[in-house]
């Protein structure tokens, strides 16, 4: 009996790729390209860079599939490759102290903080999504250092658990949590001026 490769699970498909089966590799690309593309684009919010990252990622998969430990989850390995592509291009440290300062609770009584806390416009998201806001969102997320951005994207946009995010990025869970907190607060502050009714 012949089994169609399309129906193979990841482990069986990857075993074939490891044996040099080109068709299996094509299927693997088809199976995961939307994941890679979506994640890459959310990380850089830039079409050209996302295309580059898509290509680099699958070339890495092709070359390094022999190193993949079949007992682990393929998507985790894949996310690590995409993230590394993105993180390599990083090193802008000046925002780090600002981000760390976000751990300290603000003085809720102060005038400034009150202004910062003013309630956000509660109209539906769809009606607020205008060009200005989209541009502000792009600018804000790109301002975030990439080792923070990648945590925000994995946890909040790709819905990975803290544990899987930690595995993908080879970080401790507390590090994932603190980067996520800081990222969310940072982005929230960046959007604040556009969001108050």
């Amino acid at each position, binding site marked *: 009996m012949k089994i169609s490769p399309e129906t193979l699970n990841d482990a069986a498909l990857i075993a074939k790729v490891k044996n040099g089966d080109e068709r299996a590799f094509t299927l693997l690309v088809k199976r995961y390209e939307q994941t890679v593309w979506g994640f890459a684009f959310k990380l850089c919010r830039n079409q050209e860079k996302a295309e580059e990252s898509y290509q680099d990622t699958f070339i890495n998969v092709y070359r390094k599939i022999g190193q993949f430990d079949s007992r682990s989850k393929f998507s985790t390995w894949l996310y690590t490759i995409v993230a590394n592509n993105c993180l390599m291009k990083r090193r802008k440290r000046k925002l780090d102290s600002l981000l760390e300062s976000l751990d300290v609770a603000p003085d809720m009584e102060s005038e400034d903080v009150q202004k910062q806390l003013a309630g956000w416009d509660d109209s539906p998201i769809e009606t607020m999504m205008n060009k200005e806001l989209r541009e502000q969102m792009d600018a804000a997320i790109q301002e975030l250092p990439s080792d923070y951005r990648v945590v*925000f994207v994995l946890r909040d946009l790709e819905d990975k658990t803290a544990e899987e995010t930690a595995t993908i990025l080879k970080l401790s869970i507390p590090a994932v949590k603190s980067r996520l907190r800081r990222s*969310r607060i940072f982005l929230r502050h960046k959007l604040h001026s556009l969001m108050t009714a």
Partner: protein
Amino acid sequence: MKRTNSHTMAHIHTLSCGKVYEHLCDNLDSQLDSESCRRIKAHIKGCKNCSALLDSLKKTVTLYKVHPAPKLPGKCRQELFAVIKLSGGKKNTTR
């Protein structure tokens, strides 16, 4: 009199805003039901500042979730396979 701060009225005995702030972000929609979680939720319910902050954090995440991304261009896969062929086709894994 200046504005009343609801959090200083109702929940002074349970938690401070500062303590809540430290945990606010761990899980925005936490279903956890531990003692500390219940106290945090109770505080947020009664505190205008903390609930405004939590709402805006949730909204920030939602905005990014619905922020549109373009479709994967069809040419990408073709280009990928062209590059792989150029670089020598058969891969150099375990042989």
